């Protein structure tokens, strides 16, 4: 046998499905979308404010409890962004987007985390670091992550 030949093996259309329990803090966070509210967890010791909220401060290791949850205004500052011309198809292939998507890195007022959210109602030329943005909700919110449509420039 001179040459070791190789064949390709194709699979069956099997998908592994997951449903990740989100925990109490995240549950509050997501459910409060129903009332068009964004909540964050403020460390009782160092004051670092996490959005989405969580149960332990990564900066000073203090336990954060539900009483440490604070409500944010839904306004924030754009600290970074990119325009995505491609998108993963879920199976590993980058597909071209007919309408490029603008992804913003946003620091919400009174919080310290950066969240990565879609930007809308914005001309690509006007996207700049430092501009103020605010959340745009679905008209009818149900208390799920999809309630947030995107962020748009705030006047």
């Amino acid at each position: 046998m001179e040459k070791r030949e190789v064949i390709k093996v194709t699979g069956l259309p099997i998908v592994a499905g997951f449903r990740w329990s989100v925990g109490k803090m995240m549950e509050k966070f997501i459910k409060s979308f129903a009332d068009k509210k964004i909540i964050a967890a403020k460390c009782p010791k160092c004051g670092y404010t996490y959005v989405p909220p969580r149960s332990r401060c990564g900066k000073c290791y203090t336990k954060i409890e539900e009483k440490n949850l604070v409500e944010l205004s839904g306004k924030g500052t754009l600290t970074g962004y990119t325009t995505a011309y491609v998108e993963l198809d879920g199976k590993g292939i980058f597909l071209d987007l007919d309408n490029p998507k603008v992804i913003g890195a946003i620091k919400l007022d009174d919080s310290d985390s950066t969240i990565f959210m879609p930007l809308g109602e914005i001309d690509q030329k006007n996207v700049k670091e430092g501009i103020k943005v605010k959340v745009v909700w679905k008209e009818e919110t149900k208390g799920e992550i999809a309630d947030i449509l995107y962020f748009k420039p705030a006047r």
Partner: protein
Amino acid sequence: MEEKQIKYKTEETIATEGEWPVGDYKYKAWKHHEEFKEGLKEKKIVGSICSGCGRVYVPPAYICGRCFRWMEERTIVSDRGIITSFVLSNPMKKGMKILGMDPVDMGIVADGEVLIPCMVKFDGSDSFVQTILLNVDPKDAKVGMRVQVVWAKEPKGQLSDIEGVEPIK
């Protein structure tokens, strides 16, 4: 009985969902099974033999990790051997779903049939091959039993040419 068992459980919070398309990987393999299947077409069981230790691997393997070398030579082993291990399935029932299929409805197994997946070591090989023990009452299945291959009537050169094994009369 069930109520005596304590299983720990918490209350539920909501969940988010996601997927992993495990069927979308494009794996690569040697043509070792092609060699094996060539043999099956002629009712022969092909293995690879290590030039270092003389071990015979069935189906053919390409690397002997013991001697750390390629195995280039092939050999034919007997289609008779011994059962090294077996298990008994529960009786197959109409309406049961296996990987989304109803095997009774599809005629793959008979209603009430007990499948006996087994491991067979063919004479002259150092491997066991996983197959099905046929033509035997499940009560009589035993490790150490002598068996022979039940060949398909017209072998086509595919893995299913070995339908299973049966006791040597």
